[in-house]
């Protein structure tokens, strides 16, 4: 975990010695030629879609080699008309001042993906909330339970086909 604590060039996204979005995207593509598609990059952004099986390895690669230390958010998206779901991971790196957006496509009937909580503790509650709201099961999560809705309820409220009572 390399987070040198100290002065940083103001107004430049890059930390001294940090890597920019493009270099990270290139090295990611070299490491995982198939299964990872980089949709767009910028000085401090990397957007990529990753296959379901590869996610944990890509996350480990980002954490250990690319110094991504903090999971900003884990969110679920329910593409009901196209009968598929998405788990979207936003992972930031303090050292390089770069944020990676990793999108994983999941089938709508069995939405399962590897959990990144063993790598970053910050994703713990975000993943629990995504499970609570969408029903996406995160394999390897220490305690995958409902967090915001009432325990023991069997519905997943943020799915598009969940009729939330009268349309307010």
């Amino acid at each position, binding site marked *: 975990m390399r987070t040198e604590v100290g*002065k*940083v060039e*103001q107004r430049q996204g890059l930390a001294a010695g940090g890597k920019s979005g493009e270099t990270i995207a290139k090295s990611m593509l070299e490491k995982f030629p198939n299964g990872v598609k980089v949709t767009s990059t910028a000085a401090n952004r990397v957007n990529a879609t990753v296959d379901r099986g590869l996610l944990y390895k890509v996350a480990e690669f980002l954490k250990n080699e690319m110094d991504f230390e903090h999971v900003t958010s884990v969110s679920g998206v329910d593409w009901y008309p196209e009968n598929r779901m998405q788990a979207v991971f936003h992972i930031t790196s303090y050292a390089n001042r770069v944020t990676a957006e990793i999108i994983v496509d999941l089938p709508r009937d069995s939405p399962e993906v590897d959990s990144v909580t063993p790598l970053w503790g910050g994703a713990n509650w975000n993943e629990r909330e995504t499970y609570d709201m969408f029903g996406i099961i995160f394999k390897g999560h220490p305690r995958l339970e409902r967090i915001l809705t009432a325990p023991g309820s069997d519905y997943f409220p943020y799915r598009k086909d969940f009729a939330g009572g009268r349309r*307010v």
Partner: protein
Amino acid sequence: MVERTLKRRNLKPKAYMLRPMAVTLRETINHTRHSPNTVLYPWEKLVIQDGFRGRPGLVIDKCIECGICVRICPTRCIELVEIEWKDQGKIRRPQVNMGRCMVCGYCAEYCPKNAMIIAPDYELAGYSRQDLIYDPIRLQYEDRPGCHIDVIEVKPKDAHNLSIKGYDAKTGNELKDVPEVEDKMCIGCSKCEKVCPTDAVQMVQTGVNEKGRPIKRPKFDEDKCVSCEQCLDNCPKDAIKMKEAK
């Protein structure tokens, strides 16, 4: 990085509680010399500046029943309701359910005629849910410029042109979205003409169909239209779309 040495004393506690006692003593003396900060509410009230957002207010004569406030309200608490009004007989005016209203000021901001305004009245307690529903008569408030919310916008292309202040979106035409009709979907039923509150829609004959009857298409008058999308909603064939001002 701007190295500004923050010239503040080093904050080390001296003699357990010397500084806190000194500060509280000074404050106690100050607040006995002049009266303390409390406002004795029912008897003394704070002065309210202009533009304070209390409950929504209504100027009944300026309202044209366009229903923009009904559509824009995020918590859906405004309805148009029939009332008897002086000489005009039965007219429909907005009624606000203050039990749901979150005082966001959108009804006053999007009202094209400044009929819905913001009243600086914040004492809204009632004894039952029905008390909280303000019918148009009770919603009235005197029409002061301080209560209007005017929208001074600018076109996207000259966002960085520092010279102009912007156009008034409520009166000017530069920023108005005007409806336009798709010829093949429109069946010429002139429903939009009947519905339009500011009768900005004229049915114009554009030709004759094979049976010899005239084909009529709506023509939208840009000055009169307040882009209230009534025609959009009531068109049976959804033939009308809003053309945004670029």
